[in-house]
């Protein structure tokens, strides 16, 4: 593995555990001490497909405790199907940690985490760190069905207050998780990850109620490391996260496309122009 010594953020890790918390939902736990140590809340990895026959897949780093890094994913197509076939003992090549995670530096004491579907994978580390510093953490968590509300109990056991919703009402309130958020008392800060429509609504609610919100976005990735500009979202040029671009008066623009993989995946809701 001479190749790798040179490259601190390219890892070849052994799969220690492969569990399936729900049908079609998989968790791979990897022996990757360096990766685990370097990981901050909200970051992700690019996983090299064992077959080599597809682009690498972006997956959030679900957990990083005990020298392990784990990923949690839904089988949605060719690449996640391939990863679902990986067995304990196999090794996986992956690059990471990548991206800028959630900014937990303002030390909010009352935080709402909003997760839609597999978005739950991006928020466990946040929840753990916020709880560790004694913050109140409410988890607004929505999925299609009760079965797809994976890992909810884990968040509850850790001390999160759970507000669950399902599309079919099979668990918690029926309807959108954002409706539950809208009805709730406002926290000092909102952290969210899930499908775009959910994130847009979270952004609206945060604006209406004057709360800061950080959104973890998703797009089809190419390189996953900032090299191809394939994964962008429109951002106000004044944002600290905006890539270098001339201002409008110099032939440029006040809204520019930022790379979700590099400047993101987490952005301030009020700075997005999508």
């Amino acid at each position, binding site marked *: 593995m001479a190749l790798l010594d040179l*490259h601190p953020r390219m890892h070849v890790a052994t799969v220690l555990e492969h569990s399936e918390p729900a049908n079609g939902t998989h968790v791979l736990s990897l022996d990757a001490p360096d990766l685990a140590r370097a990981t901050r809340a909200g970051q992700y990895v690019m996983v090299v497909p064992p077959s080599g026959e597809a*682009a690498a897949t972006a997956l959030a780093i679900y957990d990083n405790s005990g020298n392990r890094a784990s990923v949690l994913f839904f089988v949605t197509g060719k690449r996640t199907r391939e990863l679902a076939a990986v067995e304990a003992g196999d090794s996986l*090549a992956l690059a990471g940690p990548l991206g800028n995670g959630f900014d937990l530096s303002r030390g909010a004491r009352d935080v709402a985490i909003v997760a839609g579907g597999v978005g739950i994978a991006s928020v466990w580390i946040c929840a753990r760190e916020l709880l560790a510093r004694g913050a109140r953490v409410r988890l607004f968590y929505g999925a299609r069905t009760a079965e797809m509300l994976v890992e909810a109990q884990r968040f509850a056991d850790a001390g999160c207050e759970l507000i669950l919703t399902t599309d079919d009402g099979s668990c918690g309130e029926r309807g959108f998780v954002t409706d539950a958020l809208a009805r709730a008392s406002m926290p000092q800060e909102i952290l969210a990850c899930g499908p775009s429509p959910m994130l847009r609504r979270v952004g609206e609610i945060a604006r209406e109620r004057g709360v800061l919100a950080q959104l973890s976005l998703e797009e089809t*990735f190419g390189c996953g*490391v900032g090299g191809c*500009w394939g994964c962008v979202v429109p951002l106000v040029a004044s944002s600290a996260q905006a890539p270098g671009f001339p201002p409008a008066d110099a*032939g440029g623009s006040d809204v*520019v496309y930022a790379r979700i993989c590099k400047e993101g995946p987490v952005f301030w809701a009020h700075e997005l122009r999508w």
Partner: protein
Amino acid sequence: MVNATPSLATKIGKLELNYPTLMGSGCYGSGEEFAPFADLSKIGGVVLKSVTRLPRLGNSTPRLVHTPAGMLNAIGLQNPGIDWYLERELHKYANRPCKIVGSVAGFSVDDYADVCRRLAQRDEIEAIELNVSCPNVASEGETFGCYPDLTARVVEAARATTDKTLIVKLSPNVTDITAVARRAESCGADALAVINTVRGMAIDVDAWRPRLGNVTGGLSGPAIRPIAVLAVYEVAAAVKIPIVGQGGIETVTDALEFFLAGATAISIGTANFTDPRIPQRIVAELEQYLRVRGVGSLAEIVGRANMGISNAHQYEGDEG
């Protein structure tokens, strides 16, 4: 002989490469983005993302779609424009452990000449690739690279602005790529990059609309390799200047197809999205391939598969 380390060094015009591997424009950022995952001292060089005269925000999203053994992209040449680029970005690219090749795109002959001249003046840039495969707004969606005469005018104008190595990147979306290649050569190109992406599109059958924000995109990856290998094979027979072969290279075998077809160097783009270790692996395996065959240098195998198009026909052959 069999045990000597074969030489992979190669030359594209005045551009001397320790390794015959360039990283495709628009796929590898400025190299910096991949430094944590790949050893830049083990690649030949990076071709920078194409830059234009004016700033470009680029296309609406989605900009990428995965397709069978390939990918469609429609980035739209997002870049801050040459002024900003020269003032605020280029200096960061100095002192790389590999060569840096600039890439110029434009919408008029003057665009190309102007941007090429200013870019070439900078020491960070060792060679320039002319991306003549982006739409010529004047004539609605047509691309310079699809027309020998338009290509010729761009190359002539750019050639007049610099002595640095000029690589002209050809579009495969043409009836006869050799016609464009010959004109580029006669107008002073030092080398040709073959091929850029193949035009294509994908449709979302639930939403009933194109998947890309730009509707159409450029197809890259292994899916286009047979198209690219043929383009290199035909262009190699038509011109004398070196060729940078590209299109779907993922393994040493893929790379060898291009060298044997007539490429002096190769470019690796989309494969970096699968595994950033690929370029270094290809170089190691290329060395191994030559060593076991007792071939002293890569140059010795360039074009060795070229037996003309007709030789092999037993009867008027065709592709029906």
